[in-house]
């Protein structure tokens, strides 16, 4: 039996600042995971990944990250994506300072 598809978001780093960004449903890049498009269909996710990867003048290192649906939008399923969302835990700076 094929493995169930885990929902995903398209994520990358912004070219100019390196910030973690997420692809929204209207093709914008947002620093807020809550605005990301949650991709629940595997084929659609692959299409969105290909489209996003072509935008190399905007972002770097595009990939699909596992997520789960939450009350306010996608939520990370792995701690790495949690730290990418929240920023470093040693200083109150980076993303965590902006939340």
């Amino acid at each position, binding site marked *: 039996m094929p493995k169930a598809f885990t929902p995903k978001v398209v994520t990358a780093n912004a*070219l100019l*600042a*390196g910030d973690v960004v997420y692809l929204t449903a209207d093709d914008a890049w947002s620093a807020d995971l809550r605005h990301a498009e949650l991709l629940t269909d595997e084929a659609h996710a692959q299409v969105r990944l290909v489209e996003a990867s072509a935008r*190399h*003048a905007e972002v770097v290192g595009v990939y699909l990250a596992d997520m789960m649906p939450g009350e306010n939008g996608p939520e990370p399923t792995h701690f790495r994506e949690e730290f990418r969302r929240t920023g*470093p835990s040693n*200083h109150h700076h*980076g993303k965590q300072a902006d939340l």
Partner: protein
Amino acid sequence: MYHYNDFDAAFVAERNRQFRAQVERRIDGSLTEDEFKPLRLMNGLYLQLHAYMLRVAIPYGTLNSAQMRQLAYLAEKWDKGYGHFTTRQNIQYNWPALRDIPDMLDALAEVQMHAIQTSGNTIRNVTADHFAGAAADEIADPRPVAELLRQWSTDHPEFQFLPRKFKIAVTGSPNDRAVTAAHDVAIRITERDGQIGYTVLVGGGLGRTPMIGKVINDFVPQEDLLPYVEAIVSVWNLLGRRDNKYKARIKITVLEHGIDEIRALVEKRFAETKDAFNGADLALFEEIKTHFRHPNFRNVTEEAYDAAYKADPVFRSWADTNLAQHRAPGYAIVQISLKKHGETPGDASAEQMRVMADLAYAYGHDELRISHEQNVILPHVHKSDLPAVHAKLKAHGLATANIDLVSDIIACPGMDYCALATARSIPIAQQIATRFDELKLEHEIGELKIKISGCINACGHHHVGHIGILGLDRAGVENYQITLGGDHRETMALGQRTGPGFSAEEIVPAIERIVEAYLENRKGREETFLQAFNRLGMAPFKTALYDQEARVAAE
């Protein structure tokens, strides 16, 4: 300090000009990331978890006050007001924007600094003993050797596309403070029959396959050093496993071929190429040495030091813990801890960098060093100036008296910053330091080196920590393995794994139990943790670690 000539300045300026154009082309879309990535890495620019990271070379960890002030300026103008000093004596900026990098590199060039060969499959920034030129036990200053190697290796056409990165460390003292045996090539200055020469080791390294370097030649004469090292790199350049990046380091080449075969190949290559050096390297070496002459040491009374030592217990504690013996009478080596309890190991704010620069300028013959243990050294301070130095350090959070103690922890950036990391390391270091500060046990425990890595690449040197901690991802949860008995000195040993790892919540109590077991089992205060471990073996520590776990689980 070495001062570069017009040719050197022009070389760096041209490199910066090229990179500025490459950044512009990346931003305007002319270059893809695949095309740009090798170019940025050649200039020390990484893309990490949350931002770009610029790694700046501090050759053999040596810099002057003007250079330290410029590092502070970069931190303030283009970053978030701090920098991170690393185990390879570099400084990293964690938050620069891509379009600012060319300006940062130009600002570095103003003080004869750069980021060349701080990344990529090339010969990296050469590291050395952080007490170089000052240590009482020194045979000869390792910095001229390191500078010679740096000039030889910079943009060396044969070595810009090596199988993997290549790291060289140099020590001039029999007491190894540069972790030399954990480098691809270790150069240990030695003396035989009144002649200075070099014991050369190859194939050391930590990472996923930790290995201690093996002696390839126990005495390379001074005049043969550069052609001999070139022969080593050249042999590995041909033999290295380009088919598999995990097997591409020279330690694997030495393992697969054996040290005897490698030695024979190196000797053959050395015989072929040594004449080509034609003495030019020796002439350069003599010229380099003149830049590293000892400062004019003062001969004044130590009364001020003696008075402060007697009157002020805080100063006394700091002096007992953070000073090292200097070669010149009346002088001390000052170790400035960047490990204030609860802070990020190796981080210094721009303000702190300026304070250290001011102290070096006023009291330290304008010299600073970065240690592989992520601290800063003032190598030459007269004891009469130490009360003033301590007061200024104290006022800026830089007088923590914990060098070599349980909170003097090496910690790699880990998953808080690093794209390669599989777990965090900085918060664990912060929590351990804070916990033992609360217990007020640090000085009672004595020398104990904890080293933490956030992934198998071992940037935190965990394999050679008395207590090593390796952060891993276990089924989507941060998990921390412990090793005991590692040794980073000339008596290098790799730590032994204790058993199953611990969660982020469990790791600090686990470390506390190990330390308690040491305190209960040691012969006395004079027996260090490492000595006790070597005498007792793993058993009492495993009991302390896991029996209680089992009891708690059973309850």
